[in-house]
Every structure is written in C-alpha cells, then in structure tokens.
C-alpha cells in the first residue's frame, strides 16, 4: 500500500436504489435515491457538534472552522430569512440543529471576542494563571472528616471498653469480697474519729490529748498510709483494709500504769526492772490490727506516759517526810511506815526481746485496779481543769489568765487567799491519799471487818451486827455496828455505832453524838469494841432490872478517878430485888 501513494482511488457507493421492501410476488420496491440537497442535509444532520468542544482543539477548526468562515454572512442572512419558518415548523426543518449549533458557537465567539478586547485594555480585567488545587481541596475535608470521625469513634470505644472492664472488675470484686472498702471511705471514717490534716502530700493525724487540755509536750502525730501492696488477682484476706496508720515508734505496743502496795520494801537494786514487761502480750492475730484499735492503743500509751511523766515530776518536786523515789519506770512512795506504794509504767513493745523477758518474769497479780482507774480519771480531771481555767478575758482587752487572779488586785487579797487560788494538790498527792485510803479501805476495812467478825464469833452474849454500806466515797466508807443481847433486842438498844473509815483513821460516831477517833491500829478498834460491849452489858442489866421491877440503887457510866477516857471508862450498876432481899452489883 505504501508503495503506491500517488494513486487515488475513490470508492463510491453504487448508485443503486435501496430496496425498501420485497413483495410476496418477488417484486422489489425501491427507495428513491436522495437528491443532492437531501443528501447534504442528511450529512449535515450527522455532524456531531459536541465532538469539537470535548475533543482536541486542533481538529475542530478544519470542519467547524471552515464552516464558521463560510457561513457567517450567509448564516446571518439565513437566520433573518427563516425566522418566520422556524416559528411554524421548527422541528421539521432539516437544518435546524445545524443552525442552533452555529448560533451558539457564534454567541460564544462574540463573548470571547468581547472578553479578549476587554482584557487587551487591562483596565477592567486581567488574566492570571489559575492555581490548579481545586480538586485536592475538595477531597481534603472529606478525608479529614473521615479520619477524625474514626479517631473519635476509637476513643469512645476505648472509654466504653475501659468502663466495661472496670465495671466487670468491680462486680467481680464486690462478689469476691463484700467487705472490701476503698481508701476514701475509710479515710472519711477515720476523719470522723480523729483529727487529720494535710501536710504536703502526707496526711497526718493527731493522737494527743492537747485539744482536751493536755500539756504533755509529745506531739503525738501519726501518718495515714494508703495500703496498696495487694494483688487484685489473689484472694483478698479477710481483714484487709486499704488504709493503714503509722504511729510513732515510741508509742507502739501497749502500755498500762501499774499500781501496787507492798508491805516490805524490796532491795533498791532490783527496783525499776521488776515490773518491766510483766504482762505477756496477747497473741497477736496474723493480720495487722485495724487502724482504730491501733490508734486507740497508741493513744493509751501516750496517756500512760503523760500520767507517769506528771507523777514523776511531782514526785521530784514535792517535799515529803519520806522522799518519793523515782527509779526508771517506777515511782515509790511510802504512805505508811513499812508500806510501799509503787506506781510503774509498763510498756511492752512488740519486739521479741521484750516478749522473751515477759515470759520469764511472772510475779503475783497485785494490781490495785481501782487506783489505776482513778489515775486515769485524775489526769482527765487535770486536763479539764487546764481547759476550763483558760477563761476568755472580760473586758476583751484584758490579758488572758484566771479571772479570780485578776480580782486579787482590786479586791486586795491577802497571801492566804491568793494561795488558795493556786491548784493545791497534784496528781501524786491525790493518788497517795487515795492509796492510803485503799490501804485503809482494803486492809483496814478488811481488818475492821475481821475484828468485828472475830469478836462476834468469840463473844456470844452481846451480839454484834455490822451493816456495811455499799455506797462509798473515794476517801471514805462507813459501817454501822449494832450491839444487842439475844432475846432482848427490843428492850435494849443502847449501843449503835457508826464507823466512818477514812483515809488514815476511823471515826466512830455514837448514837448520842460523841465522836471518837481511832487510828489504823487493829488493837485499838478491838479494845474500843470490847469496852462498848461491856457498857452494853451494864445497860442491858439496867434495862432488864427496870422491866423485872428491880430497884436501881446506883448507876455510873464512869467509875474510878481521873478524867474520862475517850473510849469510855468502866461502868457499874447496883440493883436490888423488889422485896429488898437481894442486891446485885455489876461492874465491867
């Protein structure tokens, strides 16, 4: 083919008539061939005008451009001529589409021409290269939206998942251990009972009795710790508590004040250590104790220390006839000669050494629990006193201090009045006083009872009845003694005695109001009771004589010479029988 380029062969369709239809008889109906103008119109109708705009711009000018140049003049005339026709048969006219397309092309050309002419002036319009980024800009927000949506969805999903995990965990925990309490609620509970404050990132609490009026300088601070060293996977122990307290090392363990009264003084050499660590510790439970008990014991240790410190300070300061001795953890005082009151502070810490020594020493239990209790009571009274003495000044500008002390100047108090304002008795003096009474009460009372009992059992004739009263003061207790003769209780009620057993002495109140004071010696009471019994006998004889109709010749309560003895002298009575034949004289 390439060898013969010069030869042009034009192929034309045969000018045969197209067969329109073939009849049943075989006759063929032919279509009339298109005329030249008809053919042109058909071809013109086939022109694809849109091809040019979408296709390459170089192809366009050859078919359209040629047409464009040929037609303007004629087209314009055609337009004007055939406007009338268009009105009547717009669709039937074969050149219609061509004309429309050409017309729009013309419009565009005119617009282009105008634009170009304006641009040429550069007055009203300029052309700038267009940045071709419109497409990515359109895409970006969508992408961003998608990504952000994805992210937030993932976040939400994570939170939900976490929450679900936590929920399931808490459900599992509560099922596993219902008594499991969290730190904060424990802290809240702690806060209800103890003073807490926050220092830095620590929570400190106050064990001391300062707010209750204590002047003990120990700071008594404990620290609140969060107990975190447990595995959630493992089974939580029964007594697990998320809150723990750390108390100062010197307040650890348990302490108590021991008060005892001994008869003979032990060797000074082993003083002080005798009562150390005496009580073996109760077996501690495997788990750590609850914070409440821990704090309470620590506070008790602190209070015991304060009591002891106060007592030892007073023991050193107070000058008594027999000086008080303070050795290590023991205070020794002698309320009565040959009698020894020892107050000791027993503090047992948790370490094994002390437990060992505790097991070694076992002395008999000689606690005076009443005194120990009273010591606690006294220190609290002392606290209260310091609190209540802090009166607010009136008028408000006046300095702090005791109101009564301020009155001392204006009212010209003398020395005695001022000294009466000072707190008179210390803790030690009070407790010694109580101990004396305990001694009297516990031993003298016991001995009194024993004396009375032995007399009652030994002597049958005048009967002795003792009525101990159940209600006692700290420093005093009382007993009522009745001496009667059996069978004659109604006619002879001469002797009724009220024995008030005080701290150092026994006061006897007679029915007639006489008061006799006895010392704590056992013999004295016995003598006194015997003399009272003999007096009773005489009185009984007198009463009986009256009843029987005997004549009383003489009666004397106090025989002999000299002054009347306090406990009563010998008495005598002489009675004569009704007919005067016999007379009896009785003398005790």
């Amino acid at each position, binding site marked *: 083919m390439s060898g013969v380029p010069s030869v042009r062969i034009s192929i034309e369709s045969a000018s045969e008539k197209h067969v329109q239809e073939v009849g049943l008889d075989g006759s063929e109906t032919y279509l009339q061939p298109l005329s030249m103008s008809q053919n042109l119109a058909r071809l013109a109708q086939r022109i694809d005008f849109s091809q040019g705009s979408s296709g390459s711009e170089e192809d366009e000018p050859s078919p359209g451009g040629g047409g464009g140049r040929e037609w303007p003049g004629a087209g314009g005339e055609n337009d004007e001529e055939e406007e009338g026709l268009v009105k009547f048969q717009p669709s039937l006219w074969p050149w219609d589409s061509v004309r429309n397309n050409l017309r729009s092309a013309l419009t565009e050309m005119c617009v282009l021409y105008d634009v170009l002419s304006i641009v040429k002036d550069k007055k009203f319009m300029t052309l700038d290269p267009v940045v071709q980024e419109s497409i990515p800009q359109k895409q970006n927000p969508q992408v961003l939206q998608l990504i952000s949506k994805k992210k937030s969805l993932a976040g939400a999903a994570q939170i939900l998942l976490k929450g679900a995990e936590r929920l399931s965990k808490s459900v599992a925990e509560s099922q596993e251990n219902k008594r499991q309490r969290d730190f904060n609620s424990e802290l809240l509970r702690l806060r209800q009972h103890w003073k807490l404050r926050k220092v830095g990132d620590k929570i400190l609490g106050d064990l001391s009795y300062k707010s209750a009026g204590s002047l003990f300088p120990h700071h008594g601070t404990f620290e609140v710790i969060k107990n975190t060293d447990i595995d959630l996977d493992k089974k939580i122990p029964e007594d697990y508590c998320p809150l723990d307290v750390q108390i100062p090392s010197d307040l650890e363990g348990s302490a108590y004040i021991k008060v005892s009264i001994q008869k003979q003084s032990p060797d000074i050499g082993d003083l002080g250590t005798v009562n150390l660590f005496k009580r073996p510790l109760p077996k501690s439970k495997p788990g750590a104790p609850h914070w409440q008990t821990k704090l309470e014991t620590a506070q008790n240790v602190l209070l015991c220390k304060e009591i002891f410190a106060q007592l030892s300070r007073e023991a050193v300061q107070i000058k008594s006839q027999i000086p008080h001795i303070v050795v290590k953890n023991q205070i020794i005082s002698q309320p009565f000669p040959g009698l020894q009151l020892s107050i000791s502070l027993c503090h047992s810490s948790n370490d094994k050494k002390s437990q060992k020594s505790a097991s070694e020493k076992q002395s008999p239990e000689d606690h005076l629990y009443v005194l120990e209790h009273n010591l606690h009571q006294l220190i609290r009274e002392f606290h209260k006193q310091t609190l209540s003495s*802090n009166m607010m000044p009136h008028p*408000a500008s006046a*300095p702090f201090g005791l109101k009564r002390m301020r009155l001392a100047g204006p009212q010209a108090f003398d020395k005695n009045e001022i000294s009466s304002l000072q707190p008179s008795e210390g803790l030690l003096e009070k407790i010694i006083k109580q101990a004396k009474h305990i001694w009297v009460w516990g031993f003298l009372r016991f001995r009194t009872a024993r004396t009375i009992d032995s007399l009652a059992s030994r002597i049958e004739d005048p009967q002795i009845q003792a009525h101990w009263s159940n209600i006692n003061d700290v420093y005093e207790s009382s007993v009522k003694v009745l001496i009667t003769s059996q069978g004659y209780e109604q006619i002879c009620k001469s002797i009724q005695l009220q024995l008030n057993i005080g701290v150092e002495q026994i006061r006897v109140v007679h029915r007639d109001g006489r008061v006799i004071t006895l010392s704590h010696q056992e013999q004295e009471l016995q003598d006194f009771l015997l003399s009272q019994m003999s007096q009773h006998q005489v009185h009984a004889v007198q009463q009986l004589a009256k009843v029987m109709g005997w004549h009383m010749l003489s009666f004397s309560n106090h025989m002999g010479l000299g002054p009347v003895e306090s406990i009563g002298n010998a008495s005598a009575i002489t009675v004569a029988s009704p007919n005067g034949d016999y007379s009896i004289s009785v003398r005790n």
Partner: protein
Amino acid sequence: MEAPPVTMMPVTGGTINMMEYLLQGSVLDQSLESLLHRLRGLCDNMEPETFLDHEMVFLLKGQQASPFVLRTRRSMDKPGTPWHLRYLGQPEMGDKNRHALVRNCVDIATSENLTDFLVEMGFRMDHEFVAKGHVFRKGIMKIVVYKIFRILISGSTDNTEPLSLSYLVELSVVAPAGQDMVSDDMRSFAEQLKPLVHLEKIDPKRLM
C-alpha cells in the same frame, strides 16, 4: 493646780515590760459570718464568746506637748469582772523582719471607782465608745472581732449607734519585750485568714 509628774518614758516597772504585738484589719458586716466560721475552725477548741465593753479614754495634759493617754475598759455583759486600765505606748512599725506593730503595754485590773480616781488625778475623759463583738483565742494569740458604737449621750451606754458598716479585726499577742518570734506566728495565722480579711500592721500616724 500643779500637774503631777508624768514621764513620757516607756513604763518599765520591775519585771513587767510587756509589749503588745498587733495586726489589724476590717471586714464588712456581710462577711462577718464567714470570718467567724473560719475563726471557729482555726482557733482553740473553746466555746466562742461574745463581749460588750465600754471603753473610756482619759487624757492628762502636762507640760509636754503630747498628752498622756490611759484607756479604761469595763465589761457590760459580765458584771463583777474587774475594770481594765491600760497604757499603750507609741507604736513602732519596725522593719520588714517584724510582721506586726509593736507597742509598749501595761495592763492593770482595777476596781470600779477607777474613773473617779483618774479624774481626781487630773485626767479628763477624751472620748468613749462601746465595743461589741467576739473574742477568740489560739495559744497566746487573741483575736477580737468587734464593732465600735458611738455613744450618743455622754455617760449613758443605752443610746448607741454603730460607727460604720464594718467590723474591726485585731490579732494581738502580749509578750515580754524582744520576743519578735511571736510576730511570725501571727503572720502565718493572718495568712490563713486571707482573703476574708487582710490583717496588716497599720501605722496610726499615717492615718492622721
């Protein structure tokens, strides 16, 4: 009449040489309750007390330019309490290391015929007022929150009217001279009252 010998020297009698450390501030009536609430929390665990005092200030003019001032105070709501006679020296501002105003002070409790005695001595009453408020205590610190009432008819404390719409707040410590450490405690306590009330050392000379 010859003026009695009065010295303007600070009173230093025997062991008594006490100084008053003072910080002052004021609150409006509206914020009184919240201040009292905070003070109840901060101060010693005691029942909060109110007071109603009548103060009279007496002057004695001698040869010196400035008169000698004594303050007498009596409690109106607590009968039977002694009167209070007070001498206050010139306030010293001090430097920045001392956080409170310091003035010499002598406190004496007296009987109730004090005014007659002072008048006999040649004093005359300069002014009087009624102070009504609350008193708190924290350790040795005394905190008074009170309102000053003007006395309308001299000598009669029944007719009074408030001087202002605010309460005076005073934080004071009476301590032996030279114990400037107490002013540190006072400063830290005053810090805890902020911003309810700003306690400062106020120089009365500047206000005149």
